[in-house]
Structure formats: structure tokens, C-alpha cells
């Protein structure tokens, strides 16, 4: 049985909790098992927030993420707060705007201009969460694009379907443009 644990970290309002929900739903549409949870509490009021997703092909006993395989962050505070939890040989996806400190680590860190793409290519910074999902999906193949698109359309506010679909594609593109770096994890 294979299980992947993902944590999405950002600041309140970046929509990462919705992204987590969509990711989990996409996994379910793929016929996988998935659980999603998030941080509550004063954090959610302005400060940093996190969403967690576990995707597995079997029953998920323990529902929380202790050591993520993948961390995706759009804010520096979240990056520095959560990076230590990432599993050895795990991966961190970080927005390009974040200036990373020089550090040694077994964890792979990849940066993409997610926020910039949302702002400049799509023209709406609020779709950064969906761009993130595109990046994550293209990079990890954790969920199929079909299911992901379905899940996105299921969950975004009516009237924003088109722009979110576009955001997803731009996310895929960000990765495709950097084909060599693709990280894969086989689901056995």
C-alpha cells in the first residue's frame, strides 16, 4: 500500500484550504482513499494556515499528517514553520517570491512563480491556490488531470469556472516548461 502525505501552507486568505479539499476530492474521484484536514484556531485569523491531505490506495488509519512527503507553501512564514517536518527525500514546492535561506537538506526544494502567474497571467491573485494544484498535479501525478478538473469545478464559486480551469492549465504549464526536473513517485 502506498500513501502520500501532503501539506499546503500559506497565510490566511490564500485559499489553500480549498486547494486541499479539491486535491482530496480529486483523489477520491480517481478511486483512491483520501482524507483532508486543516488548522483551525487563531492561526486562521490572519496568520498562517495549513491544509493537509493524505492520499492512499488503502484505508487511512491515522488521519493527520505528521511528516509530509510534500510541502507546498506560498508564504515564507509557512515555509520556515513547516519545512522541518518534511520526510527525508520529500519535496518542498515554494513560491518563487520567497527568498530561501541557504541550507543543506536531503529534501528537494523547487520554486515556481505561482503567485506571479496568478496575478500576471490570469490576472487574479486569488487563483494562486488553483495554480498551485496544477503545479502539484503535473509534478507528482498524484491525481489525474480529469479528476482534478472535475474537483475544481465542483468546488469553486459559480461564475469562476473558466478562470479556474485556466489557472489549472497554467499550473501544469509551469511544470512542463521545466520538464527535466519532474519528480515522480510511483503509486504501487
Amino acid at each position, binding site marked *: 500500500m502506498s500513501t502520500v502525505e501532503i501539506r499546503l501552507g500559506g497565510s490566511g486568505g490564500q485559499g489553500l484550504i480549498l486547494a486541499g*479539499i479539491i486535491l482530496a476530492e480529486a483523489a477520491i474521484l480517481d478511486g483512491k482513499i483520501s482524507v*483532508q*484536514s486543516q488548522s483551525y*484556531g487563531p492561526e486562521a485569523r490572519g496568520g498562517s494556515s495549513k491544509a493537509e491531505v493524505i492520499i492512499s490506495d488503502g484505508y*487511512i488509519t*491515522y*488521519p493527520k499528517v505528521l511528516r509530509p512527503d510534500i510541502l507546498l507553501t506560498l508564504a515564507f512564514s509557512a515555509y520556515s514553520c513547516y519545512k522541518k517536518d518534511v520526510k527525508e527525500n520529500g519535496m518542498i514546492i515554494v513560491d518563487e517570491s520567497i527568498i530561501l535561506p541557504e541550507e543543506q537538506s536531503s529534501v528537494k526544494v523547487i520554486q515556481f512563480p505561482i503567485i506571479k502567474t496568478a496575478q500576471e497571467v490570469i490576472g487574479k491573485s486569488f487563483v494562486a491556490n488553483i495554480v498551485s494544484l496544477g503545479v502539484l498535479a503535473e509534478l507528482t501525478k498524484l491525481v489525474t488531470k480529469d479528476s482534478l478538473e472535475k474537483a475544481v469545478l465542483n468546488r469553486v464559486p459559480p461564475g469562476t469556472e473558466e478562470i479556474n480551469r485556466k489557472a489549472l492549465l497554467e499550473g501544469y504549464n509551469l511544470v512542463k516548461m521545466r520538464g527535466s526536473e519532474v519528480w515522480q513517485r510511483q503509486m504501487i
Partner: protein
Amino acid sequence: MMATRLMQGNEAVVEGAIAAGLKFYAGYPITPSTEIAELCAEKLPFVGGKFIQMEDEIASMAAVIGASLTGLKAMTATSGPGFSLKQENIGFAAIAEVPCVIADVQRRGPSTGMPTSPAQGDVMQSRWGTHGDHSIIVLSPSSVKEAYYVTIQAFNLSEKYRTPVIILMDEVIGHLREAVNLEEYKDIEIIERTMPQDKENYLPYQHIENGVAPLAPFGKGFRFHVTGLVHNEDGLPTNDPKVAEKLIERLVGKIENNKRDIVMFEEKYTEGGDVLIISFGSSARACEAAIENLKKEGIQAGLFRPIAIWPFPDERLKEIYPKFKKVFVVEMNTGQLYYEVDRIVKGDTYVGKINKFNGEFFTPCEIAEKIKESFKNGI
């Protein structure tokens, strides 16, 4: 809509309730139960139901009882502070035998405590929170799909036994999202309270050994009296000690003597082994993971997970525990269900407790470690 849906635990309660026939919700917001109210506000209008936000939890509980007496399936949801406030009227529902469902999504207490942190500190309160002798049914789900299932059963038991039923959740399950396959439950039986036939000789509190009398809704021509005072079979107050004795006996008996019908539990690896873990709600999932962990270390652990924590499935526990060297009760509190287990487990079997009450969820590791330690220390 697809049959398998990703739902939050709180959402599953609402979906389960609607599946069970929920038609009336009255509540007052409180973290981490608020989504239940919010989703009821959103969904009930579309299933012919009604939602009202009352001025406080006392009023919410009262309105729920009032609505149930008109014949609607009714519920409310809250968390610790609100649960404390509802207690007086929960006692009223118990003695007046009004079906209703109360979800308590537990957070760390006492008092305001840590409003967004998980805990299981209301286990004893759910049994004993109101004054006076009574009995009650308390169900505690371990997953989102079980939250759905348990909610349906809560309504069923509530209607069947004319009694308040409590869904004792915790923040972890309340806010967790998991898939629920609605197909699985589509044939589940939905129980409706029995309706009386004879208007002339209707006795709303007729004495039925270990059972309950039919309950007529207000407004359908039965015109009976409902009171929180000790009452006769016709519902009218009395000070007759014989009536009082019979009434209280029946209130307690209809639950305690029907345990076999009410109890729900799950077991894993209970054929025997080194240690029997007893846990419920979200904690049980950490225990399951800990059991795998222990297995690797050569420790054979079993899990007994009451789903109905009150009445506690004591008969089954008595059958199982002798097959283990010791017993641990694992809960996110300072030890509450522990008292019941410690009472049931007689003889020489050691009953230990593993507790967490710092506002964080258990990790499987820490449970496994404590158990390993106990073996090292030769307990």
C-alpha cells in the same frame, strides 16, 4: 451528485440527520460544531425542514424539544460550554421522553479552554451532566462515514426509545474530510416513533416494561400533558411514591435493559494478546496505527472500540479482556471512560490509562511508546 462524496465530519452529521428525517434544527454557534448549524441553515429549506438560530443554547434545546413534540425529528449541535448550558433541558427531554438528538463536538475544556483544539473531555458529562437519575444514549464516531452512520442511528434510537441521544464527536472528526459512500447506507432502516391509535384512551406515558409508549404529535387530536414533574401514565403530575418509582425505573430501564439492542462497538485482533486497547472517537484511529507499530516490535495488541459509549458495552468487554495480559484506556482527557473500564475489569488484570489533554491530537507513536514502556517496567 456522486455516491461517494468528500465530506467533513460535521457535514456528515447533517447529511446523516437529513437522511434520518431531520426536519428541525435549532442552535447557537460554537466552535468546533458551527458547521453543523451552517449546513442545516443551508440545506434544511430544500428538504422541507426548518432552521432557527436561537438566542442561546438553553433556548435551542428548548425549541428542539418543542418541535419534536409537534412530530418533527429535531436536533441541535454544540460544544462544551453550550453542552453545559443544555443540560437542564436535556434532563427535561429525558423525563418527558421526547426524542431528540444533540451533537457535542468536543474541544479542550474546562470552560472556554482551547476552543479550536481537540479533546474528549465530555465523556462523563454526556452521561451525568444533568441533575437527577436518568439514563442516556451516547454515540461516538471514529470517522466521517461513521459520523454519517451514527447520526442516522442516533435518530433511530431516539425515536425508538423516546429519549435524547447524544452524538459525542471530537474536533478531529468534526473537521476531518473523508469520503462517504452514500450508496452503502441507502437501505439503512429509518425508524419513526410509533403513533398511537386510540384518541380516547391515549396514555402518553403508559408503563411498558423496558419499552416506551407511542408519542402523539401536538395538534393531532390527542391533547395530552407533558411535564418535567414526576407524572402519571396520563402525563399529569403526581407525588405518589409508587408512580415515581415506576417512572424512574422505566426511564433508566428502557435504556439499561435494552443494552443489547443499543450497544455498538468495533473490535480488532481481540482473539487475545499482550494488551487490549480501549479507545473511541478519533483517538481510536491513533490507536489503530499504534497497534501496527507495536506489532512490529512483537507486541500483540487488540482494540476494543465502543461506538455507543453509553450504555457501555460491558458484556462484550467482559468476554474479551481476560484474553489479554493488560488493558489500556486511551483517550484525549485526563481519564474518564477509564473509570467505567476499571470498574468492569475485575480480577488481576491491570487497567492503565494513556491520556493526552494538551489540545493536540494523539500521535500513534506516543501511544505505542507508553505501552512499550509499561512492558519494560513490568506492569
